[in-house]
C-alpha cells in the first residue's frame, strides 16, 4: 500500500496545530527573558506549557482518528519562509502525530519529574526554559512539512541538547561534553545540510509532498547520494556509528535531560528522518537502505558491548540507548514492515528507557548523586517504587515475553531475519548481550550487599518523581502489545509511510524468537552468577583486554583522536608555521628592508652645507651633460 496524498487543511484543532510548537517556545521565551523574577513559578510554567502542547497533540490525534485512512495526511500552510523556495507549513499525519504524542507525553512526565529532581538546583528556571525550548524544536522537527523546517528543528534540538548537557557548566567535564556533542553533531548536520541542498537542486522543492511524488524519476546515483547524506545526519543525531562518541559523554547533563533528549526523543530524530524519507530515498534493496541496516546492526552490537563494561549507571544506559536505536535503524532500513516495528520500538523504547533513566535519576537522588554502580547494592528494600518501576523497564528492554520491548524488538529481529539471516542473527546476539548488561545493572544496583559510601542515606524519592515513573512503567508493560497485536500501529502508520502488502502476523513461537529468549536467559544467568550471587568488588578489577576494549568505548575516542584530531592539529600547526614564517616573513622582510635602507640613506644628511653644495653642483653637471648628450642625438 502506497502512502496517501497530502490534503490541504484548515480549521479544527489541526488548523491550530502550530500551537503545539508555539506554546513551549513561548514558555522558553518568558522564562529566559523574565530572568530571576520568574524563579518562583518558572518550573510550573514550563510544565503547564508542555502539558498544553500535549493537550493540543491529543486533540489533533483525536481529530485525525475521526477521519478515514486516506484523509489522514493534512498539511497546514503557515507562512512563506523563503519566497519562491520554502513555504513553511506543518504536516499532520499518523507518523508526525505519533512522534508529537511521544514527545509531549513523555516530555511532560519528565517535566513533572524534574520539578522534584531539580528542586535544590539554583538554575531550575533556566533548566525548564531549555526543556521547553527543546520540546518546541523537536516538535518543529517532526511536524514541519519540508526539509528546511526539519533542519531548523534539527539544529534547535542540537542547541537545546548542547545547553542541557552543559547545564552544570561549572564542571569542566560537562562543558567539554557539551562541546563534544555539538561538534560531533556538526559533522552529521553538515551531511544533512548538503543532502537538503541536493534535494533542492534535484527536485526544485524541499517540501515532502512534491519531493516524494517525483523522487522516483531522479537518477539512481543522485538518490543514493541524498540517502547517504541524510543517513550521515541521522548518524550524528542518533549516535550511530561512526558518530556515536558524543552520547556517552552527554550523560554529564542532569538525568531528566538524559531521559528526555538522550534516550526518548532527540536521539530518535535520525530514525524519524530515515522513516520519513524512506519510500523516496531508502527503498528496500537500495544501497542507501543496505547501509542503514549495516549501520544499525554495527551500532546495536557496539552499544551493547559498551553497556557490558560500564560501572556508571547512566553510561551503561547510554550504551543501551545506542544499541536500541541501532535496532530502530535496522528496522528503518527494511521497508514498510520494518518501519512499523522501528517506530513501534521507538515509542516503547521512549517509555521504558525514560523509565530506566528516571529510575537511575531517582537512585542517584537517593545516593548523593553517586553514579558508580559498584557503590550501590541492596537498594531494593529502601527504594521500593524505584525498584519495581526500574525492574519493569528492565524486563521490557530485555524483551521479557508480553512486555513492550518483547513485541517491538522481536518484530525487528523477525523482519531482519526474513530479509537477511546474517543481520537477523547479529540482532539476536545483540539481544542476548542486552540481557546480560541490563541484568548486571539491576543486580549491581538492587541486589547483593550494600557497598555504599559512608555518608549515603538512601531514601525513596518524592511523589512528584515516582508518579511519572509509575506512569512510564505502565506504558512499558502494555504499550508494545497494544501497538503490535492486531496491527494497530501498522494500520495507523500506513497512510503516512505506506503499509505492508498483507497484514503482519505476530508469531509468538519462532526460531529466532526462542533463540533470543534463550540467549537473554543465558545472559541474565551469567550476570546473576557474576554480579548477583558473587561479591562485587567496590573498585573495578582490571579485567581482560576485552573489558578494557568495552570500557574505553571500543576505542571510539582513540580512533577519532588519532584519525581526525592529531592530523587536524598537525594541519593547524603547519598553517600557523606557514603564516608566521611565510606570510608574516614576507611582510616583515619588506618592512625591515625599507627600514634598514632608510637608516643608511639618512646618513647622507650630514648637516654640512658645503657637501650639499657639492652634490647640487654635481647634479647640475650631470643634468647639463645629459641635456648636451640628448641635444646632440
Amino acid at each position, binding site marked *: 500500500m502506497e502512502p496517501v496524498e497530502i490534503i490541504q487543511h484548515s480549521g479544527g484543532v489541526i488548523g491550530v496545530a502550530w500551537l503545539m510548537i508555539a506554546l513551549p517556545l513561548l514558555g522558553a521565551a518568558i522564562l529566559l527573558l523574565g530572568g530571576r523574577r520568574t524563579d518562583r513559578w518558572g518550573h510550573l510554567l514550563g510544565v503547564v506549557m508542555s502539558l498544553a502542547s500535549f493537550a493540543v497533540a491529543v486533540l489533533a490525534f483525536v481529530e485525525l482518528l475521526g477521519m478515514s485512512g486516506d484523509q489522514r495526511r493534512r498539511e497546514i500552510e503557515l507562512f512563506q519562509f523563503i519566497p519562491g523556495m520554502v513555504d513553511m507549513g506543518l504536516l499532520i499525519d499518523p507518523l508526525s502525530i505519533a512522534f508529537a504524542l511521544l514527545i509531549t507525553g513523555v516530555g511532560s512526565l519528565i517535566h513533572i519529574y524534574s520539578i522534584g529532581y531539580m528542586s535544590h538546583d539554583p538554575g531550575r528556571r533556566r533548566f525548564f526554559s531549555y526543556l521547553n525550548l527543546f520540546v518546541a524544536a523537536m516538535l518543529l522537527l517532526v511536524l514541519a512539512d519540508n526539509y528546511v523546517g526539519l533542519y531548523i528543528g534539527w539544529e534547535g534540538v542540537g542547541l537545546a541538547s548542547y545547553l542541557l548537557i552543559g547545564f552544570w557548566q561549572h564542571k569542566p567535564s560537562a562543558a567539554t561534553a557539551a562541546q563534544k556533542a555539538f561538534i560531533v553533531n556538526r559533522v552529521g548536520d553538515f551531511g544533512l545540510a548538503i543532502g537538503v541542498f541536493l534535494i533542492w537542486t534535484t527536485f526544485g522543492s524541499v517540501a515532502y509532498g512534491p519531493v516524494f511524488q517525483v523522487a522516483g524519476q531522479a537518477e539512481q546515483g543522485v538518490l543514493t547520494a541524498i540517502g547517504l547524506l541524510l543517513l550521515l545526519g541521522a548518524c550524528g543525531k542518533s549516535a550511530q556509528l561512526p558518530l556515536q562518541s558524543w552520547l556517552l559523554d552527554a550523560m554529564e547533563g542532569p538525568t531528566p535531560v538524559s531521559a528526555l533528549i538522550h534516550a526518548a526523543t532527540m536521539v530518535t530524530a535520525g530514525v524519524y528522518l530515515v522513516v520519513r524519507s524512506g519510500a523516496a530515498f531508502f527503498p528496500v534493496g537500495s544501497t542507501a537502505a543496505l547501509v542503514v541496516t549495516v549501520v544499525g546492526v554495527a551500532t546495536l552490537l557496539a552499544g551493547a558491548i559498551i553497556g557490558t563494561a560500564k560501572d556508571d549507571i547512566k553510561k551503561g544506559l547510554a550504551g543501551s540507548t545506542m544499541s536500541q536505536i541501532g535496532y530502530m535503524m535496522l528496522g528503518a532500513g527494511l521497508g514498510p514492515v520494518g518501519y512499523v516495528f522501528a517506530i513501534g520500538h521507538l515509542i516503547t523504547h521512549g517509555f521504558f528507557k525514560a523509565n530506566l533513566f528516571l529510575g537511575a535519576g531517582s537512585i542517584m537522588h537517593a545516593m548523593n548523586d553517586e553514579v558508580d554502580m559498584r557503590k550501590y547494592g541492596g537498594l531494593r528494600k529502601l527504594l521500593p517504587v524505584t525498584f519495581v518501576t526500574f525492574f519493569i523497564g528492565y524486563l521490557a528492554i530485555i524483551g521479557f515475553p508480553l512486555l513492550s520491548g518483547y513485541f517491538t524488538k522481536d518484530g525487528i529481529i523477525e523482519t531482519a531475519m526474513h530479509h537477511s539471516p546474517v543481520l537477523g542473527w547479529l540482532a539476536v546476539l545483540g539481544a542476548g548481550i542486552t540481557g546480560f548488561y541490563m541484568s548486571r545493572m539491576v543486580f549491581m544496583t538492587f541486589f547483593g550487599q550494600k557497598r555504599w559510601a559512608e555518608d549515603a542515606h538512601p531514601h525513596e524519592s518524592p511523589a512528584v518523581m515516582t508518579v511519572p515513573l509509575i506512569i512510564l512503567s505502565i506504558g512499558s508493560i502494555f504499550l508494545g502489545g497494544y501497538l503490535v497485536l492486531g496491527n494497530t500501529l501498522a494500520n495507523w502508520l500506513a497512510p503516512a509511510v505506506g503499509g505492508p502488502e498483507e497484514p503482519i502476523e505476530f508469531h509468538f513461537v519462532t526460531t529466532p524468537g526462542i533463540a533470543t529468549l534463550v540467549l537473554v536467559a543465558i545472559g541474565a544467568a551469567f550476570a546473576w552468577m557474576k554480579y548477583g550471587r558473587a561479591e562485587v568488588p567496590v573498585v573495578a578489577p582490571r579485567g581482560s583486554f576485552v573489558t578494557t576494549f568495552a570500557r574505553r568505548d571500543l576505542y571510539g575516542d582513540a580512533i577519532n583522536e588519532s584519525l581526525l584530531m592529531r592530523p587536524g592539529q598537525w594541519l593547524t600547526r603547519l598553517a600557523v608555521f606557514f603564516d608566521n614564517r611565510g606570510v608574516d616573513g614576507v611582510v616583515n622582510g619588506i618592512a625591515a628592508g625599507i627600514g634598514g635602507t632608510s637608516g643608511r640613506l639618512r646618513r647622507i644628511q650630514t648637516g654640512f652645507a*658645503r657637501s650639499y653644495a657639492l652634490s647640487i653642483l654635481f647634479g647640475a653637471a650631470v643634468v647639463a651633460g645629459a641635456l648636451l648628450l640628448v641635444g646632440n642625438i
Partner: protein
Amino acid sequence: MTTHYLVLSALLFAIGAVGVLVRRNAIVVFMCVELMLNACNLAFVTFARQHGNLDGQLIAFFVMVVAAAEVVVGLAIIVTIFRTRRSASVDDANLLKY
C-alpha cells in the same frame, strides 16, 4: 665677439662655485654665490645682445632683485648665527642633520 663675454662669464661662475665649495667663512661663501649669480647675469645679457631681443636683459633684472632680497635675508641669518655661536664658519652650523 660674444665669445669673450661668455668665457668671462664661465670663469666668474667657476670661481664662484669653487669659492662656495672650499671657503668656510659664511660671508665669503655668500660673496661667491653673488659672483655666480652675476656670472649668470652676464651670460643672459650676452645672449640677449647676440639674439637681438630683450628677454635676457629682463631676466637679468629679475636675478638682481632676487639677489638683493637674498642678501637681505641671508646676511640677517649670518649675523644672528654669529651672535649666538660666535662663529661665521658654515661647517660649525651643522646641527640640522640626521
